[in-house]
């Protein structure tokens, strides 16, 4: 059974369909990429998967259970973590604290236990610190753990978000355009990082514009166009698909040739 299954998904904003009749399945393990031109509905799809938007129609199933209508924090509780296209960093905290927030679901201390600092709380703090440092090390950020997040350059902030999402120990990681705004060196580092994440057993669902990156690391690629599925397959199949080429080069070209 697929880890994530989307069936006949639909989302309209004021009568305009951003996603229409979309079905696909993501198998456990590996890297699954969603590509498509601007406005194809990629971010809308992500927002539905993470509970930010409620679908107009259709089903989203994760590990056999429905995600439709669940609040974002409940979906996170199922083992789905995400990063954002436009950064959503906690700028009022240090890098380490940002990532420690990622461990929220792995720990239990509530407000009143924390206020009284009962014995278990200190032990949990140490554990959370270790988990967070582990995630930071994986993302190559351990040397700036104690820096305030608002003092970091863009490229590092993007990795802080990934570290924070990883600290939640997710089964499925949703990455919304992780390479956007990165330079070539940073993109290479990111590619290696995503590979390591995939190898560690976390299923990665990636939305990305950088074709080079997608073609190098993805196991399966889904192409969206106008909110619907244009093609799905391995990177080689996608690269040779005439419909995909037409969508990317522009429909007129294809008609002109015909």
């Amino acid at each position, binding site marked *: 059974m697929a880890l994530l299954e989307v069936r006949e998904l639909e989302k309209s904003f004021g009568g305009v369909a951003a996603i229409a009749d979309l079905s696909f399945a993501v198998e456990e393990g590996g890297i699954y990429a969603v590509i498509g031109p601007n406005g194809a509905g990629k971010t809308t799809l992500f927002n539905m998967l993470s509970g930010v938007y409620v679908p107009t129609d259709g089903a989203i199933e994760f590990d056999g259970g429905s995600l439709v209508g669940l609040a974002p*924090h409940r979906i*996170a509780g199922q083992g789905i973590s995400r990063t*954002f296209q436009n950064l*959503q960093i906690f700028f*009022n905290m240090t890098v380490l604290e940002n990532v420690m927030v990622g461990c929220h679901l792995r720990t239990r201390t509530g*407000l009143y236990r924390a206020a009284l600092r009962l014995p278990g709380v200190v032990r949990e703090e140490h554990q959370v610190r270790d988990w967070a440092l582990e995630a930071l090390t994986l993302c190559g950020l351990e040397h700036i753990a104690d820096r305030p997040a608002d003092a970091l350059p863009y490229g590092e902030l993007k990795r802080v978000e990934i570290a924070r999402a990883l600290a939640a120990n997710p089964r499925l990681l949703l990455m919304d355009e992780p390479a956007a705004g990165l330079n070539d060196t940073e993109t290479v580092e990111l590619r290696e990082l995503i590979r390591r994440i995939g190898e560690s057993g976390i299923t990665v669902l990636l939305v990305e514009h950088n074709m080079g990156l997608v073609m190098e690391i993805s196991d399966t690629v889904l192409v969206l166009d106008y909110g619907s599925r244009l093609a799905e397959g391995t990177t080689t199949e996608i690269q040779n698909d005439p419909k995909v080429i037409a969508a990317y080069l522009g429909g007129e070209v294809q008609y002109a040739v015909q």
Partner: protein
Amino acid sequence: MKRLRGFFAFAVLVALMPVLFPDNYFVTVVGVTIGFNIVLAVALNLFIGYAGQISLGHAAFFGMGAYASAILTTRYGWNPWPAMGAGLVAVYIIATLISRPILKLKGHYLAMATLGFGIIVNIIMVQTVDWTGGPDGMSGIPGLEIFGWAVDTDLRWYAVISVVMLLTVLLSLNIIDSRAGRALRAVHGSDIAAQTMGIDTARTKSQIFVLSACLASFVGSLFAHQQNFISPVSFDFFVSIEIVTMVVLGGMASTFGAAFGAIVLTLLPQVLVVFEDYEVLIFGTILMSIMIFLPQGLFVGLINGGTSLLRRLRHRETPAQAGAEN
């Protein structure tokens, strides 16, 4: 115990004040007022400074605690302690009930809603004359006794309020430095990211609002027993604004900042009395200047300024060493 170094230094200072300045009006009488205000400011800071929300009606909870104690002890002859407990339970329930619908609002709308709540509660205090004595207030509220030890002098009240105040500061420091505290700050930093990290943001906001309200209710009860007299004026809109001002003045999202703001805002009018007619004018000018020149707050601003000055001085003495540090 590096984490609590600042707290212990503060506790020692509070304990030494009456020893260093015995029988001093500013320590025992004004000191008690400062203690009340620190609790109110530190508790509200959790909600506005850390969680990034706003409440312009917090004096209402302070007043509910005070009136619960006053009414139950004078009209029904209750012992002050169960009366205080009843006030706490009532505030807990009311704060919980209003928190969910009110905290769905954000920014200006939340400010308006809490403002409205505070005003309604104050109107009830003024209008239900049979219970509260109306605008004339209630007198004859009994003092407090702790296991037979009567809190009947200014110095004893200073001791009691200081302990309550220090415990509140400790509680706030403990919360901030934990999973729950990070959740609060995450709500402030990015609500949507907090949710996708599994934080129930509605519950987080509601919980801290209720805790903050209960602390206000608790010191409200103490206030009633210490003053032996209360009237609606002590819990009106201007008091709510004053508590918010303490938090902002001292420095948002800093426990000691809120405490410092409470100290400054309580002492300043007392000191400025010498300027007589110009008192309010100078008070306003000082507040404006602080916000213009130290927008991050007095405490946070002074600390940051102090450390950067220190670094610059050290840099001049041993430039190589300071360079290595960075």
